[in-house]
């Protein structure tokens, strides 16, 4: 699936990236650059308990007007609406999110509502916004989601029990502050599965039908960084160099999939996350090698390049052999960093696979999978292998 004459894409990467140890100290000047005066903090209780929210409030100083911290593992439409009401009451003119993807995505939704009012449901759709939204600075406290540079808002519709994707270029955060200090306390298990989230973003950006040279460039380098640094981060969270490299990789992978989209790994992970509360990165981690095996006959040339980025492609290997090596390397990595290997280990009931397969067909990312999927039975085949 090499590029051909049909290649056509739009490259966009509007987020200003501020990286470095202690770059949190740049928060106040970055707010000033965006002409913010009243900063509203969006975070979750885990981040607060880790002391990170306090660090941010201190960095905000007199610009801080309030905090919303009631964000669950899977944020919801109702959560965005509630956070907006409080931010509005506080007179916020800029948002600062500190957390993982759920927190950052919530802030993206609040940014829309602070600008246009109403409820998030009023904005169902894709690319409907016509102007910049409320300024938003994202400070990831995990290194995986990439949400700090993406255009998507993934929140759960708790009434329909389904994850909903809103997409708009105008919700891409203005600024992302990547400070290794913000992730050094992340427990090994969360470090592991959020790191696998980043690896999945990179590999899916490469096999997605919208892949293109610029996103590929970021994805391949992200793979290299993750393979080298994720095991170190899991083993020794205090290693700020490895933490920083992993943060950079996660942001690069996020930018890559924001451009190229993903595929069946994400579509299935969204479904099992919505139905059985499997954390997104963990779902991705389990599904990734199985989906690669499923797609291999279509994109072996692409997976051979993945193997090369992983540093495991040996001279003389065919594309198929290199693809198999890349799949095996993913299995090995997840074992090395102590992650579950099967859906049956993470609370997905066997009787629930059919519902997950069915829901997968409604996920926007499924249409970018290199092998077209229209039938739930095809998805079931992959889920059964991952079970």
């Amino acid at each position, binding site marked *: 699936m090499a590029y051909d004459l049909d290649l056509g*894409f*739009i490259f966009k990467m509007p987020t200003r990236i501020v990286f470095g140890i202690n770059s949190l100290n740049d928060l106040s000047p970055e707010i000033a650059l965006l002409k913010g005066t009243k900063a509203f903090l969006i975070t979750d209780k885990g981040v607060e308990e880790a002391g990170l929210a306090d660090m941010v409030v201190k960095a905000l100083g007199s610009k801080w007007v309030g905090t919303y911290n009631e964000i669950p593992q899977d944020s919801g439409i109702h959560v965005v609406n509630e956070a907006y009401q409080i931010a509005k009451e506080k007179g916020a003119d800029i948002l600062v999110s500190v957390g993982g993807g759920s927190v950052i995505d919530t802030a993206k939704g609040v940014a829309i509502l602070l600008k246009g009012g109403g409820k998030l449901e009023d904005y*169902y*759709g*894709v*690319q*409907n916004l016509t102007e910049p939204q409320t300024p938003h600075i994202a400070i990831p406290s995990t290194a995986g989601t990439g949400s700090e540079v993406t255009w998507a808002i993934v929140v759960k519709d708790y009434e329909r029990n*389904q994850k*909903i*994707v*809103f*997409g708009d*270029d105008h919700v891409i955060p203005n600024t992302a502050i990547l400070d290794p200090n913000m992730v050094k306390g992340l427990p090994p298990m969360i470090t592991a599965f959020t790191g696998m989230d980043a690896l999945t973003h990179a590999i899916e950006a490469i096999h997605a039908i*919208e892949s293109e040279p610029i996103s590929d460039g970021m994805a391949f380098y992200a793979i290299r960084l993750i393979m080298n640094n994720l095991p170190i981060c899991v083993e020794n969270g205090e290693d700020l160099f490895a933490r920083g490299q992993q943060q950079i990789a996660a942001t690069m992978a996020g930018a890559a999939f924001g451009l190229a*989209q993903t595929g069946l790994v994400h579509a299935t992970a969204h479904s099992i996350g919505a139905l059985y509360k499997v954390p997104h990165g963990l779902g991705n981690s389990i599904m990734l090698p199985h989906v690669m095996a499923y797609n291999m006959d279509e994109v072996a040339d692409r997976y051979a390049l993945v193997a090369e980025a992983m540093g495991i492609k040996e001279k003389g290997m065919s594309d198929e052999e290199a693809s198999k090596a890349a799949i095996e390397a993913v299995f090995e990595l997840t074992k090395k960093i102590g992650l579950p290997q099967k859906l049956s280990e993470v609370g997905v009931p066997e009787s629930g696979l059919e519902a997950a397969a069915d829901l997968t*067909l*409604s*996920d*926007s990312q*499924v*249409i970018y999978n290199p092998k077209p999927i*229209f039938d739930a039975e095809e998805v079931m085949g992959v889920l059964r292998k991952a079970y």
Partner: protein
Amino acid sequence: MALAYGTDEWLEEYNKLVEEGLASGPPFILGLPEWVSTYEKLVQGDETYKEVAKTWEGSVVLHILAKPEIGIERDIYVFMDLWHGEANYFRLVPPEVGEAGAFVITGEYERWKQVIKKELDTVKGMMQGKLKLKGDLPTIVRAVKAAVRLVELSATIDTAFEDEDSEIPPKVHDLLAKAENLGI
């Protein structure tokens, strides 16, 4: 004074425009009543569409943004009333009717031309910001086969494009002037 949309008088006037347009024969100009009517008949008679769209529920509106330099002096809304594989009717509608459709896909003239020439995939176009979607994305994704078929059928219409022939913009201008009392 504009006729009220959906009344017998409105439909009578609208059908007159369709008949007049069809009388001149193909190619039909993109987005005009005769083009929309031709599209409607194609979809209504297509067994593949009926099969792949059998679970589809809801109207789809193709919203073509105005481009006065090629005669499209105001926005055009092509309303497609679709239900369980049936295409009940396709017609141009006033903006307030179009905007109330269950799914409204908006784009510049150039984007629609790319879609009809099969140079731009509709769902990918939405993701890239070339087209805008108002409505529930998962529902559209689930119906991707039906959406693909609709595009395939539109590509089979013998279509004249406004920007490819200098004689077309005045025709579009005249039609829209005539259609003003229909609010479309």
